[in-house]
């Protein structure tokens, strides 16, 4: 700001820090429709990071996003340089719908402090708060360059000055903040203050068992030397008798389940039913349901559960460990197992094996059993397993369990150690509230809760884990769902584990307050990315920029070592982001997601704000990918005008409209490069014959423009053989021009199916074709005029490319006579180029992205036939020259014909016309 003061004083404005916004060249997003940004790097701020230089094309422009905090008037100035001598480039500064224009003066130089001047453009009105895009658009560039750009200054002015911020234009800050890479910063904003049911003083409720009695009271088992069970009437105060001691003398109870009205407590070594036989409210009998499983005296041999399913108790047995958590060997039999206990005789069957310390068992409504195992040896991170008969989950000891010879069944959910969870506890499925259908669980290491959504793909369970809330008094060890999605948390801190909280025990109830909140509701794995669901609509314009997301994936390798690092960690590119019309869902197109991986989808901290102005509470989704869903593509959409984008200094967009549409709408099902996907690949699609079914009739078609267009507009009309009819309806979402753009892109994916290519096939050779360009060098080409260099011509992407600042003409070294000439060409946005023959009277053929002037000879009127050209998309050209007559076709459409004097053999010339142009597949056959 201090550096700007002299500049501001030049403008004669009073300087108020909060009303000045300096949009620097370094933070600009450089949009390059000419393709120069990525083709040559000329239009970039990287050469001198202080200003944009080498800005020569009127199809390139810098862009910023900004936030109008308070509507009002703003004064606009540009800090620029120009060493062209006379300057003269005309430009517009557009902010939203407002615009001011100016002409670049000559400043006497491009670089150096004295070269830059402040050009005051005047004032404009910014009528509404919210995100806007600011752009400097060249209107006319009469000389070499537009300008050297240093700053776009916006100054709030007048009696109602606008207040602006550039926060959204900066690159996202990915530092961990609460809820984003680290635990949440407190109680979830949708929850009311927890109701603390913990008795003051005594008893000290270190809760290891929790369930609801038929009369509505809670049964609570406590973990202490003389384990007790309390019946808790939450409607009473402690003085009124909220806590009633029902039983005591249980051996380190680790779980409690009310079955058929009776409290069942899982002690460390037995399953016990508590009976009040005389109705006096006290337990007079502790009936041993089972103690059939082997135990030793090791203090870690806990048992977890129980669950009750189909007349059987389900109990998990933990293994004996050393003080540092390593499995002791040998173990007694059937440790680390899930047991199915028959109450009638106490006998058990081993349901599954291969676990370590399963402090959390749960059934879903369908009766599927899940258990939460803790990180340690053979458990690289804490994980949730779906328990099926005969499953082995990977934890090993000596002597090996009989099930250990089976293939390891991976978890449904992995919880990255420390990053997300340390010692997860008992989950509970919610049947009500904002997160209905999800699983909530606690963690012994912190006083809060986590969430998870589970799904089945191809019969295999997997899911996503999300952060939920902090702010409890102690770690939640046992959970019970209350009415309306409320959660009763029985709390316990282990003396050997780090825990954050005010105490090591307790009983708290959290309920939804009814206040709105903005959070990730869930995230779903799709065939080609993720769909994130929000609890409130996202503010308009947010979320469209892929830079607002980071996706990483990794795997784990279970070993005998304690825990395990992330392996093969890699970042995945977010190719596109789209927001649903109701702004409640974010679709991310992500390629490269692999099965057997944990994928973290992270949202940029501070970027996501709801329609109601609330900041996003959590921004991480940890997916466990066991099976990639098929035929479930992410919805795609084109970003609307005004979408907020992060800056990407030094990068541009060099993407054609057709390719942009492809990325947004098609890339989830169709590949451009032959990669097999749900739909047919676009690679070499044109010109091929395929069988399709139309109206139930199978027949063969030739893929051409008409067929592709019909496939887009009438997706169900022709069903390609070998593919499912999954093509969505697009007609209502695309304009006619966009359809043509898309068809053009599809066509550009078919170089071999088109008429030209750099390399000739044997068939081509038999037909007499001769290649004029080998795709890798200018061999066979030289300056059109002897003694003059062919400036600006290079080989890029197997194409002869002009992308320089100096004019140049390139000609074949071989003179061509009568015959047929074919090539592919591509032009920048608004660009024009020409081809012709050196010397003589044969006019040049013009190539442009304007169908009216493309494919005509210079000086001739516009063609009536539209060749439907697109900028930055490969087009086809065909010239047949016989005697004094030349006929031209562009993309198969005859566009021009010329008759005149036969000029004989002449070199073929490529002329740049000062616009970037690309040629490939140049070939000739004599006639």
């Amino acid at each position: 700001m201090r550096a700007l003061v002299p500049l501001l004083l030049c403008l004669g404005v009073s300087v108020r820090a909060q009303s000045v916004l300096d949009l620097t060249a370094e933070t600009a997003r450089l949009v390059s429709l000419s393709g120069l940004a990525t083709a040559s790097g000329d239009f970039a701020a990287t050469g001198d990071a202080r200003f944009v230089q080498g800005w020569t094309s009127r199809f390139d422009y810098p862009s910023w996003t900004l936030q109008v905090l308070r509507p009002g008037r703003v004064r606009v100035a540009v800090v620029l340089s120009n060493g062209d001598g006379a300057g003269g480039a005309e430009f517009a500064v557009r902010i939203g719908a407002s615009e001011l224009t100016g002409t670049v003066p000559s400043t006497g130089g491009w670089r150096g402090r004295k070269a830059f001047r402040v050009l005051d453009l005047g004032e404009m009105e910014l009528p509404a708060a919210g995100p806007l895009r600011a752009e400097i658009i060249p209107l006319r560039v009469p000389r070499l360059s537009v300008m050297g750009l240093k700053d776009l200054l916006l100054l709030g002015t007048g009696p109602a000055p606008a207040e602006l911020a550039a926060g959204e234009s900066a690159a996202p800050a990915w530092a961990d903040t609460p809820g984003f890479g680290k635990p949440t910063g407190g109680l979830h904003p949708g929850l009311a203050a927890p109701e603390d049911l913990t008795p003051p003083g005594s008893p000290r409720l270190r809760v290891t068992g929790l369930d609801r009695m038929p009369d509505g009271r809670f049964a609570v088992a406590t973990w202490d030397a003389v384990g007790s069970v309390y019946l808790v009437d939450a409607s009473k105060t402690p003085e009124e008798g909220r806590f009633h001691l029902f039983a005591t003398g249980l051996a380190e109870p680790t779980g409690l389940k009310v079955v058929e009205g009776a409290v069942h407590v899982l002690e460390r070594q037995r399953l016990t039913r508590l009976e009040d036989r005389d109705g006096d409210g006290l337990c007079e009998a502790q009936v041993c349901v089972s103690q059939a499983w082997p135990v030793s005296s090791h203090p870690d041999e806990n048992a977890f559960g129980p669950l009750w399913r189909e007349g059987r108790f389900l109990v998990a047995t933990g293994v004996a460990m050393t003080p540092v958590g390593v499995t002791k060997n040998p173990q007694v039999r059937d440790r680390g197992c899930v047991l199915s206990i028959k109450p009638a005789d106490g006998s058990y069957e081993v349901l599954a094996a291969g676990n370590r310390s399963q402090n959390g068992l749960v059934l879903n409504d369908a009766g599927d059993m899940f258990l939460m195992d803790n990180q340690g040896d053979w458990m690289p991170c804490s994980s949730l397993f779906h328990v099926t008969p005969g499953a082995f989950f990977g934890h090993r000891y000596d002597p090996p369990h009989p099930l250990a010879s089976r293939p390891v069944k991976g978890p449904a959910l992995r919880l990255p150690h420390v990053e997300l969870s340390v010692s997860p506890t008992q989950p509970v499925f919610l049947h009500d509230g904002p997160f209905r259908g999800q699983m909530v669980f606690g963690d012994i290491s912190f006083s809060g809760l986590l969430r998870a959504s589970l799904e089945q793909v191809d019969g295999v369970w997997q899911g996503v884990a999300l952060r939920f809330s902090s702010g409890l008094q102690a770690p939640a060890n046992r959970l019970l769902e209350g009415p309306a999605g409320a959660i009763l948390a029985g709390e316990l801190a282990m003396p050997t584990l780090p825990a954050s909280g005010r105490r090591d025990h307790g009983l708290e109830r959290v309920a939804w307050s009814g206040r709105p909140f903005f959070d990730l509701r869930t995230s779903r794995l799709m065939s080609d990315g993720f769909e994130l669901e929000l609890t409130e609509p996202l503010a308009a314009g947010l979320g469209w920029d892929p830079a607002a997301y980071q996706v990483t994936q990794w795997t784990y390798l279970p070993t005998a070592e304690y825990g395990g690092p992330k392996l093969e960690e890699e970042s995945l590119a977010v190719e596109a982001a789209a927001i649903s019309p109701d702004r409640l869902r974010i679709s991310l197109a992500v390629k490269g997601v692999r099965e057997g991986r944990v994928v973290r989808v992270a949202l940029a901290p501070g970027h996501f704000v709801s329609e109601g102005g609330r900041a996003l509470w959590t921004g991480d989704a940890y997916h466990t990918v066991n099976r990639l869903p098929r035929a479930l593509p992410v919805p795609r959409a084109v970003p609307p005008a005004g979408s907020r984008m992060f800056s990407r200094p030094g990068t541009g967009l060099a993407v054609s409209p057709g390719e942009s549409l492809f990325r947004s709408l098609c890339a989830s099902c169709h590949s451009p490069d032959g990669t097999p996907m749900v739909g047919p690949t676009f690679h070499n699609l044109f010109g091929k014959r395929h069988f399709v079914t139309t109206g139930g009739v199978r027949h063969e078609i030739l893929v051409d423009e008409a067929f592709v267009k019909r496939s887009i507009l009438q997706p169900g009309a022709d069903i390609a053989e070998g593919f499912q009819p999954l093509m969505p309806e697009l007609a209502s979402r695309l304009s006619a021009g966009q359809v043509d753009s898309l068809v053009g892109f599809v066509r550009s994916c078919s170089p071999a199916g088109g008429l030209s290519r750099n390399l000739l096939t044997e068939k081509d050779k038999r037909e007499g074709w001769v290649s004029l360009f080998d795709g890798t060098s200018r061999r066979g080409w030289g300056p059109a005029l002897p003694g003059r260099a062919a400036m600006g011509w290079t080989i890029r992407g197997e194409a002869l490319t002009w992308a320089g600042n100096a004019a140049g003409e390139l000609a074949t070294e071989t003179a061509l006579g009568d015959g047929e000439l074919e090539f592919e060409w591509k032009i920048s946005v608004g660009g024009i180029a020409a081809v012709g023959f050196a010397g003589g009277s044969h006019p040049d053929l013009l190539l442009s992205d304007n169908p009216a002037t493309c494919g005509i000879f210079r000086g001739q009127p516009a063609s009536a036939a539209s060749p439907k050209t697109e900028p930055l998309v490969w087009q086809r050209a065909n010239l047949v020259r016989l005697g004094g007559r030349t006929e031209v076709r562009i993309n198969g459409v005859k566009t021009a014909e010329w008759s005149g004097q036969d000029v004989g053999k002449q070199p073929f010339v490529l002329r740049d016309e000062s616009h970037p142009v690309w040629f490939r597949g140049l070939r000739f056959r004599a006639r």
Partner: protein
Amino acid sequence: MPRPNSRNPSPIAFAVVTAGLVVVAVGVRWLRPGDRDSSAGAMLPAVCGVALDTCPRALVIRLNDGWHVAYDTENGRIHAFWHQAGPGVSFSGLVTDGQSEGLNRISGVPLWSEPRESPWKWGTSPARHRHLGWEQAKDGGVRVVRELQSPDRQTVVRVEEAPAREVADGAWERSFVVAGMVSEGLSLDLPGPSSVWSVRSGPGRLESASLVFTGDGTVVLSRRLP
């Protein structure tokens, strides 16, 4: 009642206890579940499941006047019988003092215990034993309940055992309420010479060093002082 030194019990006291072992709860001051023995100064209930160092499935029952008995519920045997004026069990482990390898031990010196293997026999074979828990009668007496099966599982006998009781004449009694007997076959091995044992009442008889149950009913076993 003898008051053996907890560190160095007298031979007389040892003999009394081993000879007698207990029963019938009449006259004993039983504690309700949840009651605390203020004299013990600790949180040990009258009946308490405990994982002891060499007996992971112990059920410790506090008797009167500082006497304790620990049943090994896995094998249906008495693991230890001891006197301790304090809480009777020294707790150590994560649950109490945060020691991850700590083990609970009886506090005091065991005066008597039965062999490690199950003392219950069916004929000459081990009887199948199943612990069924414990219950407290209206009179406050605690009974340890177990089920014993013949090896062929055709006969199932329920045996409720009341822990030791010192009777007025100085002998120790131990009683068993037996139900389900259809024929003889169930027996309980007794430690020490059979000559010191006697069946005071009920359907049972002594054979060698075993108590043979002969039918349903309450068997009172007694060991008189020498």
